[in-house]
C-alpha cells in the first residue's frame, strides 16, 4: 500500500510497475494478476515451467503483445499512452539472436549500436564477452554460444535503462554466464533495471522472484 501511495506522486516515481497484468494467447489466459514494482537498480527473476508464460510476459513487457488486462507503468506514465517512448528505453533479448551472417562480428554490433541510439563503445561491448579476437570474422562462422554472446553484447553497445532478457544463459558456457552476471550487476549499479526469465541458476543478487504457473494459473486453465 505504501508503494501505491508513492506511485501517485508523479514526478518522483521512476522505474517500472506492473499492476494486475494478464495476457491472452490464442484465446487462452496464460497468466493473470502479475504484480511487481521495480525501482532503478532492481532486478526481477521470472521463473516457471514450460508454457507458464515467461516469454509471453517478457513480450508483453516489451510492448509486442498488448496486455490482456492490467497496466504497465514506466516512470509514472502508463506505457499505453506513449509506447514509442517506452520501447526506446528498453533492450529485449529473446530466443532468436538477430545476427546477420554476412556481416562481421563488429559490424553486427556497430549497426545495432547506431540503430538503437545512445551508442556506447562497440569494442568494449565485444571485449566483455570475449569477442574482440573474432571481431573481423563473418558472423556465419560463429557457434551457437558465440552468436548468443554476440546478441548479448548488444546490451553493452547502446545505453538503455530497462533490460528484458528471455533465457539469456541458454547455450552459454560457465565463463560467459559469469560475464553475463557481471554485465547485469554493472547495469544495475548504474541505475538500470533487469527483468530476466530463466530456468538456469543465473546468479542475480537481491532479485525479486516471480513464479509463474506455480500460483495455479496454468492448472486453472487446464481444468476449465
Amino acid at each position, binding site marked *: 500500500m505504501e508503494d501505491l501511495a508513492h506511485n501517485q506522486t508523479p514526478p518522483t516515481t521512476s522505474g517500472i510497475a506492473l499492476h494486475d497484468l494478464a495476457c491472452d494467447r490464442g484465446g487462452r489466459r496464460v497468466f493473470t494478476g502479475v504484480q511487481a514494482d521495480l525501482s532503478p537498480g532492481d532486478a526481477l527473476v521470472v521463473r516457471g515451467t514450460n508454457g507458464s508464460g515467461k516469454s509471453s510476459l517478457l*513480450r508483453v513487457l*516489451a*510492448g*509486442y*503483445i*498488448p496486455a490482456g488486462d492490467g497496466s504497465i507503468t514506466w516512470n509514472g506514465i502508463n506505457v499505453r499512452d506513449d509506447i*514509442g517512448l517506452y*520501447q*526506446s528505453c*528498453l*533492450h*529485449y533479448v*529473446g*530466443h*532468436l*539472436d*538477430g*545476427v*546477420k551472417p*554476412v*556481416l562481421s562480428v563488429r*559490424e553486427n554490433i556497430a*549497426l*545495432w549500436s*547506431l*540503430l*538503437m*541510439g545512445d551508442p556506447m563503445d562497440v569494442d568494449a561491448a565485444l571485449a566483455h564477452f570475449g569477442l574482440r579476437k573474432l571481431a573481423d570474422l563473418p558472423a556465419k562462422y560463429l557457434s551457437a554460444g558465440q552468436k548468443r554472446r554476440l546478441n548479448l553484447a*548488444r546490451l553493452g553497445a547502446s545505453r538503455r535503462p530497462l533490460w528484458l532478457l528471455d533465457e539469456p544463459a541458454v547455450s552459454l558456457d560457465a565463463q560467459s554466464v559469469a560475464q553475463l552476471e557481471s554485465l547485469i550487476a554493472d547495469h544495475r549499479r548504474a541505475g538500470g533495471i533487469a527483468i530476466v526469465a530463466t530456468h538456469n541458476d543465473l546468479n542475480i543478487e537481491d532479485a525479486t522472484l516471480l513464479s509463474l504457473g506455480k500460483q495455479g494459473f496454468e492448472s486453472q486453465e487446464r481444468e476449465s
Partner: protein
Amino acid sequence: MNTFWHLVRRDITLARRQGASSFLGVAFFVIAVSLFPFAVGPDPLILASIGAGIIWVAALLATLLSLDRLFQADFEDGSLDTLVLAPQPLVALVLAKTLAHWLTTTLPLIIAAPLLAMFMALPASAFTMLMVSMLVGTPALSFIGAVGAALTVGMRRGGVLLSLLILPLYIPVLIFGVGALGAAMLGQDGSSALMLLGAFSLVSLVLAPLGAAAALRLALE
C-alpha cells in the same frame, strides 16, 4: 533521422554482401523479356507494338520476385523484434527498408530497361520515356508490395499469396506506365499519364508504410 539512413545503409550493405538478389532480379527481367521475340517471331512491327507492355509486366514480376524477402529475413532471425525498439516510429523503418529495397532491386531494372527496349525494337525516341516512366512508377510497386510483404511475413510459403494480394493493385501502375510510353512512341505528349503515375506513387508512399507497419506489429504478437 539518423536511424533512418543507418537502416537504409544496412539493408544496402546486406543486399550487396548477399550479392545474388540484385543480379537475379535483373537476370529474370532480361530473360523474361527476351522470351517474347522467340514466342511471337522477330517482326519488328509486332514487337514494337507489344514491347512497352511486356517490359512493364516483366519489371513488375521481377519486383515481385524479391518482395517476399523484404521483411522476412529480419522477422525470422529476430532482428525485427529489435528494430521495433529503435527510437523511430515503425513507419519510418518500413519506409527505410522499402527505399533500400527499391534502390537495390528496382533501380538496376530501370538501368537495364533500354537494353530490353532494343530487344523489343522500340524506337530510340521512346527510351527516355521508358526510363522516366519507370522511375516515376516503380516506387508505387515497392510501397504497395511492402504492405503485402508485411502481411505475409510470418508464412512459410507466402510468395504465392503475396502475388495474389499485390498483382491486382499493380494494374493502375501498369496502365499509366504503358500509357505514357505508348503516347511517347506515337509522338504525343505522355505527361498526363506520367503525372497520374506520379500521383499513384506519392499516394502509396504516404499510405502504404502505415499499413505495412500495422501488419508488422500484428506479426510480432
